[in-house]
């Protein structure tokens, strides 16, 4: 043996292996990662991959088959509910494990375990918002009902059965890239996923902190102009003219409201870091047989969410001898969330209601937060010590005080920049114990209107517009949720929390939630607008979006002999009704003599624009740039009077102000000595927009789709740009029916005609497999872009030998 050379070469070999076994910053352990038999190459799924399998598990009760069609949609045929949801869990994990794991970890405030120190503040916010607290409360409710616990247990076991079968080599790609391992599933994680949806849809629908600042500088009349409750052009969900019952609860304004609440001009410097996207919304509508060619109802739904790869949705059919349901599911939760069965179809849009308020808390000692002043005495807070594990560095501890209102989200230790001594507790309906999952279990099995009504009754948060159609010809919609009964302007601003006088006095009785069944006009629609006109007897603030409802109503009211194809076209419609309303005002107030030749050219294009936000439209780009800079011109000076800035009025509000009051107080720029008129502001805005447009044109980006660059990112966003699909040739915008923005939009489009057999179409911008190395990762995107749909195959018992079946996965109880 040659000792010295041996030692040297062995040391080099070991160092090489060590270096390749270690994660360097964001670079994964390269040895393992590149290894053909362990690493990412194992995730490169052969195009001819078979999904046939024979599987047996001790947890199963009987036998079951899963038939995959050529789009990799599983049609699950089980003998009982428990096996059904076990298999749903198994399939979710098999095709979407990373997304389930990541999303629930993020919901719980554990993103730092994966992303490192940059996610600490995000995690703190999640914990201080009480996300886990909310999920634990939901769990208690699930545990109270043994029948529902059984279903959640079965689902959890199914997920874990798949996780248990994983080898190093079969781990999803993202685990190899980020160098971590999947964690066991629990019912709590299912609850966390549903709370993540609750946050997405019911936490960003209030603006209390920013409104509080606005209130400190604007007088009540100005506040009404900036943030009106009922827009002029509203087309509510409940048809106008519907009479409402006398309110079952009349909340009483505290006598001290003026002095302690409305006239309190204290500002708030706290700000939410991860406030959900304001565009989280959706369209749904249903037309009765009287308006369709076939004489049966047609139901349509397209939920608008942040678009991602893998998609938030996973398509499935779930069948037992007593139920048969098709639709989209949320990986991480059992049941079908949007879909249809043999008797009914349903869809959801977001209610946009404000169900979250803040209360000012006075601690005896801001450091310990151990006691707070409430109803004339020092009350003990419940302290939760949160341990945030951080990848690559030390744990971070954070103490959160829980009060009678809820967790104290903001205090001296969060966020750091707060110099004022305001402690803000959050009261949010998502914290209340409820079992939203069971609504979907029952909807999956509903046979008629009564079953539907019974199913949705207990659904509390996030408030949703459940649209409905049945084979018996009924159409209906309910805005369902638990909504606080508020006195006028209660909870628009941070409220005093030193006693119970400003607490919610109750909820609006469920039966009084806005709803409509079989209206004479033969259609119902919801698109995140205010659900009712001003005659509804409750004060119902929210982040409503008006324009889409106006457009949908405009089309549906005039249509007849409707076919599923008409509904698909409508879901892909590009008409910009807001632009239609404001165009004449813009053209009236622009001073054309002041424009340069280039600017005139843009104006001419705008004048001849067909008001469609189609992909190749230049008019839409010009309009949007112009309107955006007009909004800045009108509001910026006024909103900047407070720090942080007061919230922006909606586009709708701006448009309506221009229609109503062209000499409004807000038109003038208060930062200049002279007084501007609408002529000045509109023209200056156009000139500013033209500068931007010139740049865009030089870059070849004047067409709307090039300008906004529609992109569907991988869940890890900027960390993995190569996994995204960019430059999709699709038009639309948040206020347009086809609500595609840069990376947000219709996450599932579905049209169901209640004929026999049911005729259903659907598409989502993604693919059934979460594996970026699979051809099923993004194979629906091109169809989605083109406005094309997949015909949904509602498989029957007798179809077990059908040629649509590409692969079969057999499940049975293991011996």
């Amino acid at each position, binding site marked *: *043996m040659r000792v010295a050379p041996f030692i040297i070469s062995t040391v080099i*070999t070991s160092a*090489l292996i060590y270096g390749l076994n270690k994660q360097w910053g964001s670079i994964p352990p*390269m040895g393992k990662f590149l290894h053909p038999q362990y690493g990412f190459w194992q995730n490169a799924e*052969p195009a001819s991959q078979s999904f046939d399998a024979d599987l047996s598990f001790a947890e199963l009760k009987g036998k079951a088959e899963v038939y995959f069609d050529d789009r990799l949609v599983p049609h699950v045929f089980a003998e009982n509910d428990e096996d059904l949801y076990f298999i749903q869990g198994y399939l979710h994990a098999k095709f979407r494990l990373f997304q389930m794991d990541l999303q629930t970890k993020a919901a719980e405030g554990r993103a730092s375990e994966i992303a490192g120190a940059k996610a600490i503040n995000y995690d703190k916010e999640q914990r201080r918002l009480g996300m886990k607290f909310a999920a634990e409360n939901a769990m208690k409710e699930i545990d109270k009902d043994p029948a529902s616990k059984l279903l959640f247990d079965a689902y959890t076991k199914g997920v874990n059965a798949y996780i248990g079968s994983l080898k190093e080599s079969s781990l999803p790609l993202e685990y190899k890239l980020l160098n971590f391992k999947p964690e066991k599933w629990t019912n709590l994680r299912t609850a966390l996923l549903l709370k993540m949806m609750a946050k997405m849809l019911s936490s960003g629908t209030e603006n209390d902190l920013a409104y509080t600042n606005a209130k400190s500088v604007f007088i009540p009349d100005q506040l009404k102009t900036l943030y009106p409750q009922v827009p002029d052009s509203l087309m509510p969900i409940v048809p106008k003219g519907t009479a409402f019952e006398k309110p079952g609860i009349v909340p009483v304004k505290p006598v001290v409201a003026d002095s302690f609440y409305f006239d309190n001009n204290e500002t708030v410097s706290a700000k939410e870091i991860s406030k959900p996207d304001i565009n989280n919304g959706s369209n749904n509508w249903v037309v009765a047989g009287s308006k369709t060619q076939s004489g049966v109802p047609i139901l349509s739904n397209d939920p608008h969410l942040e678009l991602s790869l893998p998609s938030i949705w996973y398509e499935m059919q779930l069948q037992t001898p007593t139920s048969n349901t098709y639709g989209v599911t949320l990986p991480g939760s059992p049941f079908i969330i949007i879909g249809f069965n043999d008797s009914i179809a349903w869809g959801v849009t977001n209610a946009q209601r404000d169900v979250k308020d803040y209360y000012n808390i006075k601690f005896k000692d801001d450091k310990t937060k151990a006691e707070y002043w409430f109803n004339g005495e020092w009350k003990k807070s419940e302290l939760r010590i949160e341990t945030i594990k951080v990848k690559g560095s030390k744990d971070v501890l954070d103490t959160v005080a829980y009060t009678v209102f809820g967790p104290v989200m903001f205090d001296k230790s969060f966020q750091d920049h707060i110099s004022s001594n305001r402690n803000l507790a959050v009261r949010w309906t998502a914290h209340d114990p409820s079992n939203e999952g069971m609504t979907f279990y029952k909807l999956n099995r509903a046979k008629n209107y009564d079953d539907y009504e019974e199913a949705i009754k207990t659904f509390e948060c996030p408030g949703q517009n459940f649209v409905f159609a049945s084979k018996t010809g009924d159409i209906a919609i309910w805005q369902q949720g638990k909504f606080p009964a508020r006195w006028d302007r209660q909870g628009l601003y941070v409220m005093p929390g030193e006693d119970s006088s400003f607490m919610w006095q109750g909820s609006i009785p469920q039966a009084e939630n806005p709803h409509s069944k079989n209206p004479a006009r033969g259609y119902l629609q919801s698109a995140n607008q205010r659900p009712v006109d001003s005659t509804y007897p409750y004060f119902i603030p929210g982040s409503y979006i008006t324009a889409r409802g106006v457009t949908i109503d405009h089309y549906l009211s005039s249509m007849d002999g409707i076919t599923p194809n008409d509904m698909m076209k409508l879901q892909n419609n590009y008409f910009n009704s807001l632009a239609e309303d404001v165009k004449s005002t813009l053209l009236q107030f622009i001073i054309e003599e002041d424009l340069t030749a280039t600017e005139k050219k843009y104006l001419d294009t705008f004048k001849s624009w067909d008001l469609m936000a189609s992909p190749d439209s230049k008019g839409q780009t010009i309009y949007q740039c112009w309107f955006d800079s007009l909004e800045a011109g009108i509001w910026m000076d006024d909103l900047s009077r407070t720090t942080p800035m007061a919230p922006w009025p909606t586009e709708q509000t701006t448009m309506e102000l221009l229609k109503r009051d062209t000499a409004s107080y807000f038109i003038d720029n208060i930062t200049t000595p002279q007084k501007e008129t609408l002529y000045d502001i509109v023209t200056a805005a156009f000139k500013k927009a033209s500068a931007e447009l010139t740049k865009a044109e030089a870059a070849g980006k004047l067409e709307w789709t090039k300008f906004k660059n529609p992109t569907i990112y991988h869940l890890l966003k900027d960390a*993995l740009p*190569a996994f995204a699909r960019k430059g999709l040739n699709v038009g639309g915008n948040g206020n347009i029916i086809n609500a595609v923005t840069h990376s947000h939009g219709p996450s599932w489009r579905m049209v169901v005609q209640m004929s026999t057999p049911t005729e259903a179409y659907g598409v989502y911008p993604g693919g059934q497999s979460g594996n*970026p190395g699979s*051809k099923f990762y993004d194979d629906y995107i091109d169809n989605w872009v083109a406005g094309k749909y997949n015909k949904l195959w509602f498989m029957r018992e007798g179809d077990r030998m059908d040629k649509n079946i590409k692969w079969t996965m057999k499940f049975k109880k293991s011996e």
Partner: protein
Amino acid sequence: MKFLVATILTAMLAFIAGLLSFSPWWGFAVTSLLVAILVHQKAGKAFLAGFLGLLLLWAGLVWWIDMKNNGVMSVKIANVLPLGGNSIYLILVTGIVGGLVAGMAAMSGSFLRSTKSSR
């Protein structure tokens, strides 16, 4: 002849090591070292046999995987790494990394069995 045997043996054993669930990803380093002890050659040749054995095995395997996958995965990873989205580079890098580890391990094996006389 000896060289060819060592190369083929290195590749074969490395492949088998990759199938064993208890083996860490670097199991092939151990087998490559063993091959070099068993089929003794001078250090340089041993390195080359180890290097080539793994280069051929890994590059061959992933070339096959990539072909069946129509390059769906390799293009994405070759953008992440960053290799400009070039699948061929990614296949080569994969082969070279395996080759270097195996080559170095084989060299150690050669030195382990070397005597002054066989120098």
